[in-house]
């Protein structure tokens, strides 16, 4: 069998932070022993969700080769990113593209928007003539609901946040990569445009066979378009499965909290309970061993402090949770 398009094996990323008052020099494990496989076919949208600081952007950065892994491997069609030569890296960079949380930093403020398109078209030699180039750009802009006349001659600061985000989508549409890492691509647009961008993602998946790592904290859009979902908690996977399995029947206590916290778009169903974040001291004291969710977990047991819980199979159909509550069930559950 052909190797998967992208495979992340036991990826760990540790950052070292500066010390000072209240904070001795410290290591932050942003990603711990993280694995993920994206198969060549069918193309898919894998959502990476999880709280702020759980390691989502770190994952994006290591996949895009912006920052090296502390340990582990990233394989593209079976080849390790760390062993690629220059040509292979160029090929990798073309085929694994990014759309960012805040695309503003990506643009050069002194160039007009058209420069973004001209640069990629030249860099990857996508067009043979000026007119072909113009048509390609217009087509790509139309995919995300924009028109060349409205945006191409503008400078980045003259566009709204949502417009800049759609331009980034149009840019990757031109390149037609195999994988797009989209970090919060719809966090700044309103509902109807969000639908347009998500629809553009579905179109890229179904028509061009592009797979997505869709990084978001918005479970409701993931629910609408995502195939599989991976919920991170402090750098490791808390729960994984198909989007529908995980959101309809969350198993991990953290994921249950997460799903419950999604604000209901209904003013008559207002929050009636207050939730609290645990004290930092409590959090820190318990995270060195055992389950990282222990300090916040309403169902914690002594067992949970012994070691980091591995992923347990919930139902034999790819729904897994890293929680000792499922340890026994998993052992007993016969594979169907």
């Amino acid at each position, binding site marked *: 069998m052909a190797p998967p398009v992208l495979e992340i094996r036991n990826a760990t990323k540790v950052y070292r932070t500066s010390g000072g008052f209240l904070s001795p020099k410290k290591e932050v494990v942003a990603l711990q022993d993280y694995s993920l496989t994206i198969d060549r076919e069918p193309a898919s949208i894998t959502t990476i969700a999880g709280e702020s600081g*759980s390691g989502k952007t770190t994952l994006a950065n290591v996949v895009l080769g912006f920052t090296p892994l502390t340990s582990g491997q990233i394989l593209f069609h079976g080849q390790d990113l760390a062993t690629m030569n220059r040509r292979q890296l160029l090929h990798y960079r073309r085929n694994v593209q990014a759309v960012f949380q805040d695309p503003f930093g990506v643009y050069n403020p002194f160039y007009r928007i058209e420069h973004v398109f001209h640069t990629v078209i030249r860099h990857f030699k996508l067009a043979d003539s000026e007119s072909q180039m113009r048509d390609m750009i217009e087509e790509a802009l139309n995919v995300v609901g924009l028109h060349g006349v409205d945006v191409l001659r503008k400078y980045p600061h003259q566009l709204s946040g949502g*417009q800049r985000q759609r331009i980034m989508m149009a840019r990757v549409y031109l390149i037609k990569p195999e994988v797009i890492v989209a970090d919060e691509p719809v966090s700044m647009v309103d509902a109807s445009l969000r639908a347009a961008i998500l629809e553009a993602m*579905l179109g890229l998946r179904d028509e061009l066979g592009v797979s997505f790592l869709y990084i978001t904290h918005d479970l409701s859009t993931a629910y609408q378009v995502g195939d599989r979902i991976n919920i991170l908690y402090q750098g490791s996977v808390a729960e994984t499965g198909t989007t529908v399995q995980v959101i309809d029947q969350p198993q991990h206590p953290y994921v249950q909290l*997460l799903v419950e916290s999604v*604000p209901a778009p209904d003013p008559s169903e207002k929050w009636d309970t207050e939730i609290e974040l645990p004290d930092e001291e409590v959090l820190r004291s318990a995270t060195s061993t055992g389950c990282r969710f222990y300090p916040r977990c309403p169902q914690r047991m002594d067992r949970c402090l012994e070691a980091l819980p591995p992923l347990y199979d919930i139902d034999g159909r790819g729904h897994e949770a890293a929680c000792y509550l499922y340890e026994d069930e998993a052992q007993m559950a016969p594979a169907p």
Partner: protein
Amino acid sequence: MAETPAEQVKRRQRKVLEVRNLRVHYETPTGDVIAVAGIDFDLYDGETLGLVGESGSGKSTAAYGILKLVQPPGRIVDGDVTLDGDELVHMSDSNFRQIRWTKLALIPQGAMNSLNPTMRVHRQITDAIEAHEGKQDKETLRERVLELFRMVGLPQRVYNMFPHELSGGMKQRVCIAMGIALHPTVVIADESTSALDVVVQRVVAQTMLRVKQALGVSMIMIGHDMGLMAQMVDRIAVMYAGKLVEVAPVETIFDEPMHPYSQVLIESIPSLKERKPLKITEGITHDPRNPPPGCIFQLRCPYVMERCRSDAPPLRELLARHEVACHLYNDDGSLIEDATMEAAS
């Protein structure tokens, strides 16, 4: 001290902020972009008003306009803004500087990306405090910063960290802490919880509501997340292409949106309860330098009529506390006759 319900009702009837015919343009070589095309609204004491709308509809620009922070090539073309009885637009810059942040604070969109990368987090906050209140005792400042951290749910270790060492959500909370540091009367929060995950967002939202109550702050929340709006705000103002198209209590906007654009906005809210096809409306808007005569929504409106192409519909109070800018309705809020016919066809 807790307010009695009667006191609260009374307070809620007092306008703290009045915005009248605010117009902000950006000059470009090919003509002015009309980013805010004359908007009117009030903010009541203790209220939270949600400002929602299309990306590029002028929400952030409106906020800059209110705070007189519009940068060239932008300029305030017209309008009056009154805060607690003081007219702001024509106030001298030195007087205005006293009010900005201490009475009227903005947590700007993307603020987290404009934190100074070379300065530790606590310095950024204490600098802001000292810029307005003068030099202060170190220990007092440290206590204040840590108290602000507690309010927005930031761990203490952030005190000495640099912005690039924080996750997006943590940076966002630093910005919220800066916004409320001087206990302003009115806070405008532009997409302040957008980059936060739901659990933290919920905690921060609760915190904002609590801080709001405790300090008696009135708030304008600019955002896209209709779920969060449903939970947090009292009224919603819907903006489209530089204009307010509908202003109403939050329940009304969700249950009976009247403007066709608000209807689109409500229908396309993604749900966690069912997987449904995405609702897309034609994403094309007009050239913001050159709006067509008549209604600004005419190019996307499923109910567009002859009249919409020539006359701009004013924002009218059609039902109690429910303002709509649309020709589909009579003055009493009922649908006009031709509208039903055309919409059905």
